[in-house]
Each structure stands twice: as structure tokens, then as C-alpha cells.
């Protein structure tokens, strides 16, 4: 099972890394005659039962207003391999593009956007989760190690962030910001918000671990051997919390991916040309995606794959995911994205 989970993750991350090679098109190429076109699945057998190299049947627009497409079964479009640095394309990309997961409402290749969106979404989630653990680790470590008034102050601060109705603050913040935010700024801002919101959970757990570890023999011994405070904290106490921190990372990542979708609802997500899973799900949030264009829901499937992969890896990894606070971030963020 762990292997399976790991392979899921490897596939997703490889797909993200190899997006320019794997995607048949750039994520912002628009096929204006193929708005909401269904997937063009590769075939190897034609209607007459003859075998061919993989090919697709092109779509013909039957009714533009109803977004109805008919497959042109008389034309076979062979796939061409390794052309222009891309693994597979249709032989006539301009007229009959290879749309493995269909097209979205702007006529863009959903598959390409999934791959490129993985870079944005996973990148953001990873950076934010790292930031949260780093920030939380430092705060929690310092609070647990120094204790006393510092502990009290730091813990009150984390409590404050914990119970802050973050979404209200984010909404109010959006009103103050300029109309147009570059995608770089959006990335940094979202990562910062997620890191701050996620950090308290990490901090609570790390503090508890550091506090208890500090009393243990090896820490006492190290101190008596003359280890400095910083050294003791960084070399001895924080590593004790590392298992916990790893768990945190895996819980925060999926929560952040989903939260990004919700933030784009209030205008704080990535703007149009940038593909991200969250923004794609936001676009898919309409009734027709549920009935007529189900392929638009594919980002949810991608997130599922990542979450499942993380769960499978985690469950068998010996890292125990069951500490009280380990699930808090998930709860917090899930319910937070609810409050959006």
C-alpha cells in the first residue's frame, strides 16, 4: 500500500515537473472552435476493425450554442510523437488538437492545465506547508525551550491566530490591496497567509514535544556537557519533533490546495492565464460542469490522488499520524475553507 501511495505521489510530481514535455499544448492556448469540447481519447482500432498506430477522431462542432460536438469518424488523426519537445500531439494541432481530458470554457486543454496547474498548486502548498512548519517549529521550539513569560506570550499569540476568523481578515485585506496583483505576488501572499494560519498547530505540538524532551536524560546530559542553548534546541530537541513535523507537512499540503480554490472565490486566487487546480475547480463550480462537462472536475481527482497518496504513505510509514494536534490543521483549514 505504501508503495502504491508513493507511486501516486511520484506520478503527480513527475507530471508536474515534466509538464512542458508531457502536455500537448501550452496551458493558455485557446481553441476557439472547441469550447467545452469533450476529450479526444486515443484509439488504435478504427470503425472497420482495422488496427492503426494510436490516433484520435477530431471533433466537429454540431451546435455552438448548445456546445454539442460530433465525432468525425471518417477522419483519423494519427498522433505524432516527440514533436517540438512534446511527447504526443495530434498530427494537425490547429484543426484537431489532442485533448486528452477535453477542453474548458475557453477552449483550453484541460490536461495541459492540470499538468501546469500541478506546478502552481503543489508548489504553493509545499512552500506554504514548509513555511508553516518552519514558523511553527521555531515558535513552538522557543516557547517550549525557554518557557516562562516567553512561552506565555508566544502561546497566546498562536492562540490568537488560531481563533482569528482568518477569512474575514483576508476579505478585508483584499479590499485594501490593488485591483491587479501579479501572479508572483499572489503566490507569495497566499503562501504567507497559509503559513501564518497553519503555523499555530505546528507550534502547539512542537512546544509540547520540546517541553517533554527537555526533561529527558539525553537533553540534560547534553546540557551538562556544555552544549549551548541554540545547539541543544536545533541539534537535539527539534529533531525529536521531526516525525511530528513530517506528519504536519502531509496534512497541510492537501488542505492548502483546497483552500486556494476557495480563496479564488473571493478574488484572492491566481488570475486567469495562470493555471492552478484551485482556479480550475473554481471555474468548474457551475451546474453544467456537473451534468455536461464532467471532465472539468478532473482537478478534484488530481487532488484526491495526492491526498490518497499522502495518506497511504503516511499510514505505513511508521510515522504515527495520531497525535492530538496532528489533525488540527486539517480540521482548522477544512472548516476555514468552509467559512469561505
Amino acid at each position: 500500500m505504501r508503495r502504491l501511495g508513493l507511486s501516486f505521489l511520484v506520478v503527480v510530481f513527475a507530471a508536474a515537473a515534466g509538464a512542458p514535455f508531457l502536455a500537448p499544448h501550452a496551458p493558455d492556448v485557446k481553441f476557439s472552435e472547441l469550447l467545452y469540447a469533450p476529450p479526444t481519447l486515443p484509439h488504435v482500432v478504427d470503425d472497420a476493425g482495422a488496427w492503426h498506430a494510436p490516433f484520435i477522431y477530431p471533433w466537429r462542432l454540431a451546435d455552438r450554442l448548445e456546445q454539442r460536438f460530433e465525432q468525425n469518424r471518417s477522419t483519423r488523426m494519427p498522433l505524432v510523437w516527440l514533436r517540438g519537445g512534446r511527447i504526443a500531439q495530434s498530427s494537425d494541432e490547429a484543426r484537431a488538437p489532442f485533448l486528452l481530458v477535453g477542453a474548458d470554457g475557453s477552449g483550453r486543454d484541460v490536461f495541459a492545465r492540470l499538468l501546469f496547474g500541478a506546478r502552481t498548486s503543489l508548489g504553493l502548498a509545499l512552500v506554504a506547508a514548509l513555511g508553516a512548519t518552519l514558523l511553527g517549529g521555531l515558535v513552538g521550539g522557543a516557547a517550549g525551550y525557554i518557557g516562562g513569560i516567553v512561552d506565555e506570550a508566544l502561546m497566546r499569540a498562536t492562540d490568537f491566530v488560531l481563533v482569528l476568523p482568518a477569512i474575514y481578515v483576508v476579505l478585508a485585506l483584499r479590499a485594501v490591496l490593488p485591483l491587479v496583483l501579479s501572479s508572483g505576488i499572489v503566490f507569495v501572499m497566499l503562501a504567507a497567509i497559509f503559513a501564518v494560519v497553519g503555523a499555530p498547530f505546528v507550534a502547539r505540538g512542537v512546544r509540547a514535544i520540546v517541553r517533554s524532551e527537555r526533561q529527558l536524560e539525553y537533553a540534560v546530559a547534553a546540557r551538562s556537557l556544555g552544549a549551548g542553548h541554540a545547539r541543544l534546541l536545533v541539534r537535539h530537541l527539534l529533531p525529536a519533533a521531526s516525525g511530528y513535523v513530517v506528519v504536519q507537512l502531509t496534512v497541510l499540503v492537501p488542505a492548502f490546495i483546497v483552500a486556494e480554490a476557495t480563496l479564488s472565490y473571493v478574488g484572492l486566487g491566481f488570475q486567469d492565464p495562470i493555471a492552478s487546480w484551485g482556479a480550475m475547480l473554481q471555474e468548474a463550480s457551475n451546474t453544467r460542469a456537473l451534468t455536461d462537462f464532467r471532465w472539468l472536475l478532473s482537478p478534484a481527482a488530481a487532488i484526491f490522488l495526492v491526498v490518497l497518496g499522502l495518506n497511504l504513505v503516511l499510514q505505513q510509514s511508521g510515522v504515527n499520524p495520531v497525535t492530538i494536534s496532528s489533525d488540527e490543521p486539517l480540521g482548522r483549514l477544512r472548516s476555514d475553507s468552509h467559512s469561505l
Partner: protein
Amino acid sequence: MTRHSRSVAPFIAAVVAAAVGCSRPAPSTSTPGSRQGGEIVVTNRSNPSTFNRISSPGGRADDLVALLTQAKLVRINRVTWEVEPWLAESWTRSDDGLRYTLKLRPNVTFSDGEPFTSADVAFSFAAAYDDKTASPLKEALAVSGKVLGIATPDPQTVIVTFPSFFAVGLRILDNLPILPRHKLEAALKSGTFANAWNLDTPLTELAGLGPFVLSEFVRGQRIVFTRNPRYWRKDADGSPLPHLDRITMQIVPDQDAELLRLRAGQSDMSTVEMRPSDYAPLKRDAAAGTVKLIDLGDGLDAEAFWINLNPQHFAHDPRAAWIQKDELRHAISMAVSRELFVNTVYFGAGVPVFGPIAPANKKWYSAEVPHDPYDPAGARRLLASIGLVDRNGDGILEDAHNQPAHFTLVTQKGRTDRERAVEVIRDELKKIGLVVDAAPVDFGKMRQLVGSGDYDALYFGPGATDIDPAVNQDYWLSSGGAHFWDLGQTKPATDWERRIDELMARQVASPDQNERQRLFVEVQKIFAEHEPAIYFAAPRVFLATSSRVTGYTPSIIPPQLLWASDTIAVVK
């Protein structure tokens, strides 16, 4: 004095004949009386801001409340576009055309039982003209900035005196709902009229002359209108109007949720048209017989794109060298393929449009008005003529200071057609090297930006309430309140705006229809030459109702069905 009274047209039949552009469903002709009773549920996207239409800053929900609960002296029939007698039963016009003597309909009472007299008319004008009210209706009820004179020699007579000859005469009275003096006079006298009849006012304090009365208001959820038993209008067969006992207006901000309710049979209609993207599921439902899908043909209102032409906004901006130049706007118009626009934004359900008067406005559209061809190469040449050239070969044009040519395009968030349109404009302009940053914002924010003039460019559908340019002067005149690209001009900012002002002044003062047509073509030509607002396409208008709704007379402009709410009925 020339007798100038119009017959009380049983307009339903006329409406059907005077199609604006396509076939209409004929209203059912069931036997009289059988239509009486029943209720419908309609969905509206926004909340009202006040129950006082005169002090309302404008907004669809406020208009709807006024349409359903109040009445006007005359009504513009939103299908035939003729003026119909309403509270004023008939009128005569003086020979010089300046003075109208209106006879009010006798035995009309407000919903609270108080009789309706000319004093209420005088009061309503006074309220709209009062500076403290700050009513947006003031501009609409004035001619060349001068207000109308109102005299009430007796309770059944109102004399309206125009400050100068006004071609469409009483047509502008369609703007003013007549409010009850007995309820509101105290507020006007004490200077609190602007805040009277706000959303916190007990509904029993309201009274009106419309077909319905407000009977329940739950903030953010619903407004319930019940039949006004004292309503004065009768159906063609003499049966009392309105037919419906109740209209429940649910506030549903989300367009998808609105569609779902209609399809689930939990609402009977939306207050506005459906999106072209909703056509496919609605067509399936129509085939199954659960909804009626009504195709009204090409719309009257195309949405507009404009660059902020207020010189202040770019005063300290290096882009001032090119951004307000005519050439830029022509280049933009030439760079956007209208065909692509129609196909992408409206899924093919629309027609290309090149100016504020769409072809569906048969009366005022003119093929003589020139328009920009689709010519991206020509657009690039135009841009080069104002100093925008690709100086470093990156595909993006740079100005004389080597700064990339870019601007921010604001539009309304949550309106998918507008968001799609901005996407198309951005993509098309990218092809000629102009960088557009799209900024979808909430409606209120957009209003604020337009008001403050603090934006680069905007894409929005201003929407007119009448086809006659004389009633839409706020758009054409440089001082007008809908002269969006450069609001608040005290005197014309440019020579061409001055010329349009002059032509419009002549146009609205001419008694000769041919002369008015000719002058308006002139206006449109000047407009096309400078293109302060660029138009791309007018969508086809689709309505959907539940299959039980009948007796409606759909107009091409919103609210397509509720503009004539008193004849709507349900099949039992």
C-alpha cells in the same frame, strides 16, 4: 390646441405584432376570469436598497419594486415603444408644443384607500426635483438641464410645461413613479425624504398605485408582493387586474442557483434574461415540457468597452502620451474579431455591433454610420502612429519611454459573460502587442471606480431604458450622468463632444421626425469617428419561465416580463 390623445390600446395584441426582431410566442387566449388568482415565484439577483424609487440611486431591485407597486403618468410600452396613457388618461398639447394638459384617471385610489389626485403628481415632481433628495431622476426629468413646470389647476388636471420644445414630450414622464403625498410630504418638508421609505420602514407605511403591494420583506431572502385590490386597471375584457394574487421575489445572487431553481420547478422565472451558456439545459427542459424557452432575438443593448477619457486620471502618468488618443480606440476596435467575440462570449448567439445603437434598434440604427473593419495589421499601424512600437522584439509594444503599453481593464465579477468578454479582449489585444490586465471587481466597487474616475478602462453594459435617444441624453451629452468615459464635465472636454452636444440639442428640439433621424445619424457618425466607447456584440436574448406562466408580453430589455406584471397569469 391640437388634440393629441392616444387610444387606450389593448397592447397585448399590438405587442405581438411589433416584434423587434424575431418570432414571439403568442399569449394564450383563455376565457376571461379563468386567469384570476394564483401566484408565481421569481428570482432576482440583488437586494433592493430602498423602497423609495425617487431617492433610489438606481438598481434593478429598486426598479422592480417600483414597477410592481407604483404607477406613472404615462408608460412607454416596452414592446411597441409607444407612449401609453397610464395614470393620465388623456392629454392635449398646446400649439407651441410646450404645454401638456393631462387629465388624470378618475376614481383611482392608492393601495391604502386614499384617493389619487393631481397633488400627488405635484408632490412627486417636487420630491424628485428637491436638491436634498439628490434623485438621479432629476436629470431624466429635465430638458437641457431645466426642470419641467408642474401646475395643478384642479384635482384631476396636471399641466406640464416644458422649458423648451422637446421632441418626445411626455415620454420622459415614464421615469417618475407617482408617490403618495399623504405618506411622504412630512419627510420632504423636514428634509428627510432621501431617507424615507428605507428598508426598515414598516410595510404598512407604504402605499402605491401599482398592481401589487409589498406584504413581506425579509432581508436578503425575499420580497412578497400581494395583489393590490384597489388597482385601477382592468383587463381588455373588463376583468380586474392584476391576475396574480401574489408574486414572491426571491433574492438569489448566484446565477447557477437561479437556473437550478427554475429547472427544479421552484421558481417560475428570473427577472432578467438567461445566459447563452444556459441555453442547452433549458432547451432540454423545454423539450421535456417543464419550462418554456423564449427566444427574443438579438438584444438591444450591447455591452461597452471604454478607456477612461478623464484627462485628470492620466495627468501624472507617462501613458498620457497615447492612452486617450482616438487611434488607440480605433486600433482596439480593429483588433478584436467580432465573430470570435460572438462565438466565444455568447456561444454564437449574438450579432456583431459597432456602436451604441444596435441593429435591433430598427428605428434609430443606421447602416450609414461607418465602422472599423477587423484588421489587426491596420491596428498595429495605427498604434505605431501614436508611438507604440515593438522596440525590443518581445511582441509587446513599447511607448516612447520604452515602457510596455499596458492598461487595466475592470469588469463586473460574477457575470460570466462579462468575464469571458474581457478574456477575449485581452487575448485579441495581446496579438497586437497591447498588454491588458483583467480586474474583475464587485458591482459596488465598479460603481465606485466609475464615480471616482480611478480606472484605466472598463467593460460594462450600461443598458438603456428606452430606444429613443432623446430619453437617453445622459449618455450622449458631455454633461450627462451616463457619459461614462468622462463623467462630470462642466463644459465639453473636446470639440467633438461639443458638436454632439449641439446636434443632440437640435435633435431633441426638432418636431420633424426625419430631421431627428438625420441629426442622429450625424451624432452617430461623430461618435464612430472618435469611438469613446467600443462595442463588440449584442447577445441574443433568451427567457425561460415555468410552463404554467402565461399572459406575458416579453420586452427585449430587462425586466423582460415583469415590466407588464399585471397581465401575467398562471395556468391552473
